[in-house]
Every structure is written in structure tokens, then in C-alpha cells.
């Protein structure tokens, strides 16, 4: 038996630590480069025109995202409206009511499988069922329903975590005072879980904002020169509009597209910031 050199073992460790650092280095480096180049490309086009003009495929200086931004706002609101009650309701059932038997496992498997379905497939679903079978056409409502399905598992997962974080003592106290299960949930557990649920909803909305593929498949219109007038209106969403501009040749269109992406990222950032701040502030008044 020969003793292994301590120096060799130390050297091995150093090599690997450097490799491990590379993982983070690459990720952060790319992030930095991506954001920098995005802003650089977008800079000349970050003007109010973005918000006031509609889509324009002839003149880049007059191209804007007015309809797209409005469309995104419509879709996100409706999606939240549908997915929150559904998602939180499902989370409540899974955390508070279900007893962990076979049915519970099937339900949970259902949620996690849905989470793994590619977004295009949701688009096909929306196309087949909402646009055609329900005869809605390629309208805001169809888009919202489709995205509701897509974002539902994420809301369930985050809402479950929020509910799980509520200490058992709160439930016990409520029940000990003679509350029914639902009363305990409604009056004690849910308010206690509120910060987490708020986060869940905002993060769900954030996911929705960036979804492009399903809306493309459903049939978001890319030459829309009016703002959506209602759930039954044809629509275009911000990422879809960006995609339309990317497809055009020439650096000026890259600039317009980049500008749209900056707007997109700013909206996303705002949502996330609200989520984090909201959660922190609500948590300060916690147990």
C-alpha cells in the first residue's frame, strides 16, 4: 500500500474548484453580456413611440407596440383572474384536505406532469379547443384560457409552499375554538399565507408575460392597428410582436425588437420587485 500524496490531493481539489467556479462564471457572464448587448441595441429606439404607435413594418422609426402592450395587459389580467382561484383552490385542497392516499398521489402527479408540458403543446390545445371547438376564434379570451392552463401548475406549486409555511399551531388553535375546517382555513390559514400567495400570483403573472409560442399557435395577429376592445377581440401580445420584428432583415428592426424586449424585461422586473417587496412588507407583520 502506498500513501497518496497530500499535494496531489490538494492539487486535484484546486482544479475542480476552478471548474466549479466556471459554471457560475459562464452563467453570470452570459447574463451580463446578454443584458448589455440588449440595451445597446435597443437604445436608439427607446422612445415614447414604442408606446404610442402600432405595428409598422415599413418604417422602423414609426414602429411601436401599443396594441401589443394593451393585448398583453388584457391577457395577463384575465389569466390571473382565472388561474388564481383555480390554483389556490387546488393548493388548498392538496395541502389541507387531501389525506395523502392514492388519489392524492394521482392529483399531484397530474400537477407535476402538466408543469412539464412544452408551451407549444398548450398552444395546440388552445387552438383545438378554445379557438375552434368552443368557436371563440383567435381572441383575447382564448389566449387567456390557454395561458391559464399553462400557468396553473406553477400557481399550485407556489401556493402550496405558502400554505405549508403556515404553522400547524394556527390551525389547531382555530379548530380548538370550534371552527369548522373551512372556517379555520378561510379566517386563519389563508390570511396567514397571504404574503406567499401574493408572491405566487405575481410570479404566475410574470410567467405569463413572457410566453410567446402558445399565443403564436393560437393565432395572435401581428398587424393590429387598434387596441383590443374586449375579451372577444383579436389581439397581439408583446412577445409575439417582438417576434414579428425580429423576423425582419436589417439592424433597425433588430433595434425595434430589442426595444420591445427592454420594455418586456422592465415589466417583468417591476412585477418581481413588487412581489418581493410585497412579501417582505407583509411578512414584517407576521407571527
Amino acid at each position, binding site marked *: 500500500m502506498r500513501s497518496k500524496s497530500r499535494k496531489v*490531493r490538494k492539487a*486535484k481539489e484546486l482544479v*475542480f*474548484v476552478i*471548474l*466549479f*467556479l466556471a*459554471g*457560475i462564471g*459562464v*452563467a*453570470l457572464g*452570459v*447574463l451580463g453580456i*446578454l443584458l448589455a448587448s*440588449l440595451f445597446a*441595441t435597443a437604445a436608439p429606439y427607446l422612445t415614447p413611440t414604442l408606446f404610442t404607435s402600432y405595428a409598422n413594418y415599413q418604417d422602423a422609426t414609426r414602429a411601436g407596440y401599443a396594441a401589443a402592450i394593451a393585448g398583453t395587459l388584457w391577457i395577463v389580467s384575465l389569466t390571473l383572474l382565472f388561474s388564481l*382561484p*383555480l*390554483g389556490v*383552490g*387546488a393548493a*388548498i*385542497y392538496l395541502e389541507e*384536505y*387531501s389525506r395523502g392516499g392514492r388519489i392524492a398521489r394521482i*392529483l399531484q402527479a*397530474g400537477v407535476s*406532469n*402538466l408543469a*412539464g*408540458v*412544452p*408551451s*407549444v*403543446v*398548450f398552444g*395546440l*390545445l388552445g387552438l*383545438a379547443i378554445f379557438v375552434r371547438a368552443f368557436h371563440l376564434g383567435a381572441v383575447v379570451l382564448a389566449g387567456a384560457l390557454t395561458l391559464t*392552463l399553462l400557468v*396553473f*401548475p406553477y400557481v399550485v406549486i407556489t401556493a402550496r409552499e405558502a400554505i405549508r409555511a403556515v404553522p400547524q399551531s394556527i390551525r389547531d388553535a382555530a379548530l380548538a375554538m370550534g371552527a*369548522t*375546517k*373551512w372556517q379555520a382555513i378561510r379566517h386563519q390559514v389563508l390570511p396567514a399565507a397571504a404574503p406567499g400567495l401574493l408572491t405566487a400570483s405575481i410570479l404566475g403573472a410574470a410567467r405569463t*408575460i*413572457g*410566453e*410567446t*409560442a402558445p399565443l*403564436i*399557435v393560437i393565432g395572435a395577429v401581428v398587424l393590429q392597428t387598434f387596441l383590443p376592445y374586449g375579451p372577444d377581440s383579436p389581439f397581439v401580445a408583446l*412577445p409575439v410582436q*417582438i*417576434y414579428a420584428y*425580429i423576423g425582419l432583415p436589417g439592424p433597425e428592426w*433588430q433595434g425595434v*425588437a430589442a426595444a420591445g424586449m427592454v420594455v418586456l*424585461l422592465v415589466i417583468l422586473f417591476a412585477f418581481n420587485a413588487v412581489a418581493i417587496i410585497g412579501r417582505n412588507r407583509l411578512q414584517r407583520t407576521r407571527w
Partner: protein
Amino acid sequence: MGGVNADRTGARLASLEPKWVWQPGETLVRGLLFLAAAFAIIATFAIVVALLWDTVVFFGRVSPVAFYTGTKWSPVIDGLYGVLPLIAGTLLIAGGAVLIGIPLGLSAAIFLREYAPARVREFVKPLLEVLAGIPSIVFGFFALLLVSPTLKAWFGADYFNGANAIIVIGIMIIPIVSSLSEDALTAVPTDLRDGAVALGATRFEATARVVIPAAFSGIMASFLLAFSRAVGETMVVLIAAGENVNLTFNVLGPMSTLAGDIARKATGDLPVGSDLFRSLFAVGFTLFVITFVINLTSDVLRHRFREAYD
């Protein structure tokens, strides 16, 4: 306690109207919540139905054999519905992306969990989450704007090529691998690590020989999930990988994937009720089955991992 005060309280309570709680309400609430929970199953079911509906009709008109073995996907021009180019493209791009994203993501997880001081962790983790939150369309743009010219300059690649997607998707999945692997590493009890250190292991040896093997199922599950994500990625492929009707393994040239092609065809003119239209669903069904299998395997692995530590 007892005596006068209790009597007085008792008397006061007795004079109040008992509040009538609607008992059936409890059952109703429970039922509604159950439906919400079952929504996922309903939705999955709906997906399968929606896909199968047109797929079945499609396979009545185009033989599944020709579909799954044909090497040319040129439905518009040649009426050929061979899906192999798409499957090959999907596996090549997702496989390549995973070769990039998994080592980098696992490295990041190991570094964060085993080596990084708390302050570095607090700084890096939010940044990784930012990376995870960037919509794929932005990554597609990045692929076209920066990756493509670089590949063209270094390797003479085409403007639209598969490597664009491979590199960029690889980077996109780093946060997934990193965050899930880190969870797996954290779940390993500290006494295992301590046991190795007490025997004279260096930090690296303890990590490599004890912690990682112990976290293996969880780590594998994260790999599979990342792979599934790469398989389903649409926008990056749509924007930067180009279109190719032939079966090809040349990543420096254009390639099509299942997901990318669905989106691409959907933006074109699709006469409803045509074979072309239905082919979308056949492709979608194929994609769904592939990701379903991957996700199922990942779930099974994750459960097995959790059992080992309960």
C-alpha cells in the same frame, strides 16, 4: 375556575343566538376545491384528447409508418410527412444543450452548496433566478445577435444553425439544473459529510465521494427535467435555428425541431381541415409523448430519492 363569574358568562352566552353554520357548505367547499385540484388531470386529459383527435384522423390519411420513418419533412411542397428530421433535430439540439447546461449547472450547484461563503451565495442565487426568468424570446434574440456571428466567424456556420440553439438553450437550462441539484445536495444529512471529513477527506473528496453519490437520484431528476425543458423549447429554435426539411446532423446548418416546427407552421397559412393542419397535431402528439416519458422518469427518480432519506 367556577363560581359566580362562570355563571355570569354562561348566562351571557346562553342569551346569544347560536350562529347557524351551513353544514352542507363544508362538503360543497371541499368538493369545489377537489375539482380545482383535479383540474390538472382534466387539463392533461384535454391535451391528450385535443392532440389525438386530429392525430388519429391524420394517421388515417398518412401512414404512421411513413410518418415516423420518413426522412423528409416537406408537407407543403412534396407532400412528404417524414417526421424523422424533426425528431433528430430535437434530440440533437436538446442533447447538445444538455451537454453544456448540465456540467455547468451541476458545477454551479456544487460550488454554491459546498464552497461558497454565505455572502457569495446570497449574491449569486438571485442572479441565477434572474437568468431563469428571462423569456426565451430574449435568448433567441441573443442567439441571433451574438452567437450566430461568432459561430460564423469561428466555424463558418450558416446564419441560422442548430448550434445557435444548442449553446443558448444550454445556458438557459443552467438555473434549472443548478437549483434542483442544489436542493438534492442540501437534502443529504450533514453527518454523512462529517463522517467523511472525520476520516481525513478533503472538502472535494467528501463532496465527490459521499455527498454527490448520496444525492444522485435527485441530481439525475434535475438532469431529466432540464432535458425535458430543452426538448420543449420553441422560441430559440424558431428564431435562430432555421428550417430544414431534410434529416441532417450538421449543427452548423439549419435544423428543425418538433416544437419549433409547430410554431413555424402555425404562423403560416393553414387551411383548416387540411392534412397540413392535422400534421401539426401529430407532431404535437409526438412531442407530448416524448416529454411525458421524460418527466415521468424524473418524478419516479425524485420519489425514490426522497424515500431514501425519510
